[in-house]
C-alpha cells in the first residue's frame, strides 16, 4: 500500500489505523544530554552579525542553508544527517524544573512523578533478551520512570567506558553460584512462612541482576576492546567514551541510552567555556553519528541533542549568558528523521520567528518515531491518567 506523506503520518498518529501502518523506523534512542543549558548562540544558532552574537563566528555545514558555531567543525561535516530545530520554546528557567520538563515532557508537580521518555520506552519496547536493561544512563542520574515503576527506570553508570559497578561477584564464580542456591532456599522458606508476595517480586529483581552479571553482552559497557583510532575520533573524554558505549549498547539491543555532558551553565565567561565544552562534545557527537551510519544503525537509532534551555542572547556583565527558555535549539539525527533546518529566531536570537515548538511536541516527535503513541495514557498512582506527552504534536517537518 502506498500512502502520501501526510496520509502516512496521519495514519501513524491515529490509533485505529495502527495495524495498517509501516513499522516505526527507530528501534532505539540516544539522548545526548547537555546539562546546564547550552547557549543556542554558541552552538546551533550563532548570530555573527549581531551585537548579541559576541565573538562567536559561524561556519557553513554540509546542510545547505545551515550555519553553526565555528567551534563545531566535526558536526558541520555531517550536518546533512541532522534536523536542527531553532524554534524551541519553554517556560521553565530553573535547572531542576527544566531538566524534569525536558526528560518527561511535563512541568514538575509534587502529586505525580511523570515517567521520563526513557521510562516509557523501557515499558513499551521492553528490555533485550540478553540480560541488558532497556534504559541506561551514562554520566548522570537521568530521570526515572515515575509511576511506571523503578523496573523501567535507568540503569546508571557514573563513568562510562568500564564495567558497571558491582557486576562482578566479590567472591569466585563457584562460590557465588553456591551462595545463590543457599539464598534461594532461604527465600523459598520465608515466602512460605510470611505469605508476602514481596519475596517473589524481590527474587525477580535479583534474577534480573544475575542475568546482567552473566550477560554475554556485558562487554558492551566496556570500551577497552575498541581500536585506538575509534577512541581518538570520539575523544579521550568521559562524554566521548559515553558515546562509544551508547553505540555499543544500542548494537546490543538497549533501547534508550542517555549520555550526559555537564558544565553548560555559563553565567560567567561563556565564550571560553562553551568552546571547551564543544571541544569535547563536537567530535564525539559527529563520531557517534558517523559510526552509527557506517554500521547501518543510524536509520534505526534516533539521536537527540538537547539541554535544559538556551541562554540569554544579551551578554551579561560577566561575559556570560543566563538562562533563556524562551528560545533555544535542539538537533536530531537518525531514526527516520528528515534532515533539514526547522524554524528560526530573529536577528538577535531573542524571539522565535514563525512557528514555535514546545517540549511536548519534541517528545511527541520522538515517541512517534519510536512507534509509541504520544497520547496513550497510563494510570498514575493517584488515579489520574497521564499520557506520554502533555498534548504534544509531532513536528511534521522532522518526520
Amino acid at each position, binding site marked *: 500500500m502506498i500512502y502520501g506523506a501526510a496520509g502516512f503520518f496521519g495514519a501513524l498518529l491515529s490509533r485505529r489505523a495502527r495495524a495498517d501502518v509501516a513499522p516505526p523506523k527507530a528501534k532505539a534512542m540516544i539522548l545526548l544530554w547537555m546539562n546546564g543549558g547550552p547557549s543556542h548562540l554558541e552552538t546551533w544558532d550563532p548570530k555573527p552579525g549581531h551585537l548579541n552574537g559576541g565573538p562567536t563566528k559561524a561556519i557553513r555545514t554540509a546542510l545547505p542553508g545551515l550555519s553553526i558555531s565555528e567551534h563545531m567543525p566535526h558536526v558541520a561535516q555531517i550536518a546533512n544527517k541532522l534536523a536542527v530545530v531553532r524554534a524551541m520554546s519553554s*517556560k521553565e528557567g*530553573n535547572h531542576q*524544573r527544566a531538566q524534569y520538563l525536558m526528560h518527561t515532557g511535563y*512541568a514538575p*508537580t*509534587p*502529586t505525580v512523578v511523570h515517567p521520563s521518555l526513557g521510562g516509557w520506552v523501557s515499558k513499551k519496547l521492553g528490555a533485550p533478551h540478553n540480560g541488558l*536493561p532497556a534504559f541506561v544512563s551514562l554520566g548522570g*542520574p537521568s530521570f526515572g520512570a515515575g509511576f511506571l*515503576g*523503578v*523496573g523501567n*527506570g535507568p*540503569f*546508571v553508570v*557514573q*563513568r562510562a567506558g*568500564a*564495567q*558497571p*559497578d*558491582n*557486576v*562482578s*561477584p*566479590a*567472591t*569466585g564464580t*563457584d*562460590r557465588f553460584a*553456591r*551462595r545463590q542456591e*543457599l*539464598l534461594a*532456599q*532461604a*527465600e523459598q*522458606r*520465608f*515466602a512460605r512462612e*510470611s*505469605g*508476602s*508476595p*514481596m*519475596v517473589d*517480586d*524481590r*527474587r525477580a*529483581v*535479583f534474577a*534480573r*541482576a*544475575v542475568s*546482567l*552479571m552473566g550477560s554475554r553482552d556485558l562487554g558492551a559497557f566496556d570500551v577497552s576492546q575498541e581500536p585506538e583510532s575509534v577512541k581518538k575520533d570520539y575523544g579521550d573524554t568521559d562524554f566521548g567514551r559515553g558515546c562509544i558505549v551508547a553505540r555499543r549498547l544500542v548494537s546490543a539491543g538497549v533501547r534508550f541510552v542517555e549520555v550526559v555532558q555537564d558544565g553548560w551553565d555559563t553565567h560567567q565567561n561563556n565564550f571560553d567555556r562553551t568552546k571547551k565544552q564543544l571541544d569535547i562534545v563536537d567530535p564525539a557527537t559527529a563520531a557517534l553519528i558517523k559510526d552509527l551510519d557506517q554500521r547501518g544503525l543510524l536509520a534505526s537509532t534516533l539521536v537527540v541533542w538537547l539541554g535544559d534551555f538556551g541562554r540569554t542572547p544579551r551578554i551579561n556583565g560577566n561575559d556570560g549568558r543566563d538562562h533563556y527558555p524562551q528560545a533555544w535549539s535542539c538537533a536530531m539525527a537518525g531514526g527516520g528523521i528528515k534532515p533539514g533546518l526547522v524554524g528560526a529566531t530573529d536577528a538577535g536570537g531573542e524571539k522565535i520567528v514563525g512557528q514555535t515548538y514546545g517540549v511536548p511536541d519534541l517528545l511527541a516527535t520522538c515517541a512517534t518515531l519510536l512507534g509509541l503513541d504520544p497520547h496513550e495514557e497510563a494510570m498514575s*498512582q*493517584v488515579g*489520574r491518567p497521564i499520557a506520554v506527552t502533555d498534548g504534544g504534536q509531532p513536528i511534521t517537518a522532522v518526520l
Partner: protein
Amino acid sequence: MTRFSAILAATLVTAAAVGCTHDAAPVRTAANDAARAKPNAPRDFSSADVDVLLKKAWAEKGVSPSAPVDDATFLRRAWVDIVGTIPPADDVTKFLADASPNKRAQLVDALLASPAYAEHWADYWEDELMGQARQGDIDRLALRLWLRDQFAKSVAWDKIVYALVTASGQNSVGGERAKSMGEAERAIAKSDTPINGAVNYVLKYRDTPQDWAGSASKTFLGVQIQCAQCHDHKTEKWKKDDFQKFAASFMRAQTLPLDGPMMKGIKRALVRDIDRPLPRFMRDMDLQAIGRATPTALDGTPMTGNVRDAVGQWMTASPLFARAAVNRMWGHFLGRGFVDPFDDLRPSNPAEAPELEDALSKDFASHHYDLKRLIKTIALSQAYGLSTGAGTPVLWSKFRASPLGPNELLDAVIDATGVDDALRRLGRFNVEEITEKLRTLYGFVFDVDEEFDRPTFEGTITQALIQLNGRLVAGGSAALPGSAVANAARADLTDAQRVEALYLRTLSRRPAKDELDSWTKYLAHPPPIADPIAKAPRAKNDPLARVAEKIPETRDPKVAALEDLMWTLLNSSEFVLNH
C-alpha cells in the same frame, strides 16, 4: 461560609465521626487554647480504644484479623519503625526471656527514650524535607543536627513545624563540607555566630516559593494544592487564585549570601523576612501573579503582619495539621494511612476507618501534638501486632511488609555485621566519614516513596547488585577481627551456637529446627576453598573501595562457610523487609 472554608469544611466532614461536635476550621485563638487545656477536655484515647474501633470496623466489613506475631517479630518491627535499626542480639534474647506481661509497653517506652529515636527521626525528616537537594548553600548536616535536637528534647510537633516554616538566621558555619555529624556538631558549637540548621529547609526553596508553598501544604497539611498552581484543580475545588493567595505568604523570605562564588564547600547565607514580596520574584513572569495576591490561608483567613509567621501559626493550628501527622504516622507503622497516599487529604479521597482517624487526630492535637504519645498508642495497638499473610490486607487486618528505607537498611547491615567495629580495629579509617558517604550512596540508590501503599516490591538492578556484590555486604560478611562473623568463628562455640549467633544478629530471632539442621550440616562439611580470585575492579563511587583491599579472603573452609551464611542472611528478604 466563604468558598475557601467550604472546601476545608468538606475535607473535615469526611473525617467527622458520629457524634463529633468539632467545628470546621477553627482559627487559633486564646479561647481555643484555653479550651484545650481544660480538665474536662475529651478523655485520653488509648491503644485499647484503637482496638475497639478497629474491631468494630472489621466486624462491619466481615474481615477477621490475622494471628498475632511472636515476640521476636514484634521486637524487630518496633525497633525498625521507632529507632530505624534492628535490635542487637542481647536485646533479642533478653526480650524473649522477659516474662513480664507489659514488656511490649516497656520496650516502646525504652525505644522512645533512647538517643537512637532522635537520630532516626532526624534522618527521616531530613530526607523527607530535602530529598536530593544538595546545592551550594545547603548544609544538610546542620539541618539534621537541628532536627535531632528537637526530637531529643521531645519538642511538640507543632512547634517543630512552626520553627521550620518561619526559620531565619544563618544556615551554616560554611567552609569545607563536614564529613560526619560529629565534625559538623563540633564546628557549630565553636561558631561565634549562632547557626540555625532549620534555615537549610528554607534555602531549598529560595528560588521557588511556589514549590515551597505546595510542598509545605502537602507535607504538613496533607493538602496537595500545587495542582492548582497552573490551572484550576482538575478534580477538587481549588482554584489557581486560592493557590496564589496561599503561596503569597512564602514570597517574602530574603536570602542574603554571605560568601561569594565558591568552587567547593558550603556557602553561608542569612535568611530574613522583608515586608513585601522579593523584588526578584516580582520580575519573574510566573511569580508576579503570586506576589500581587493577598496573602491568605487555605480557609480564607487573611495573613497579616509578618505573613510567614502568620502562615506558620495558621498551619500548625489547623485541624488538617493533626490529621496529616496522624495519617503519616499510622501509614509509617501500619503500611497504609487512613488516607492513601497519606499526604493527599481531600473529599474525593475519603479515609478508611474515619472514626478512628478522627479520634487519633483529636487526641494528638489535645495533647500538644506529642509524637511520642501518638507513636506509643499506635505501636501498642492490636493491629500493629498482627502477622503478614497472603491476600490483600483489608483495614489493616493483616500486617503489610515493606522494604527497609535506605537509612534503616544501611544501619541494619552495619549493626548486624559489626563492620564499623571491624573497620575501627583496622585503624586508618574514619568510620564516621565512611558511614556518611554510605548514607548518601544508599539514600540515592535505595530511595523509597513511603506515602503510597505499595503492595509489590520495587527494586532496581543497581540495588540488587549492591546487595549481591557490593563491598559493604561483602565486608560485613567477612571474618574481619571484631566483626559478627569473626566472633561467631571463635573456637569455643559449637556450630549450633554459631548459627544461632548470626541469626540473632541479623534476623533478630533464633533459627528454627530445620534451619539449624541444614546450616550445621553445611558448617560440618564446608565446600573446599577455591583458588584466590582476581580482585574485581574498584567501584569508583564505593566509599569502601579502599577498605576492600584490606579484606583478605579466608583460607579456612569453615570460616568461609560462616561467611556464606552471613551473606545469605544479609541478602534475604527476611532481613531487607520490615515484616
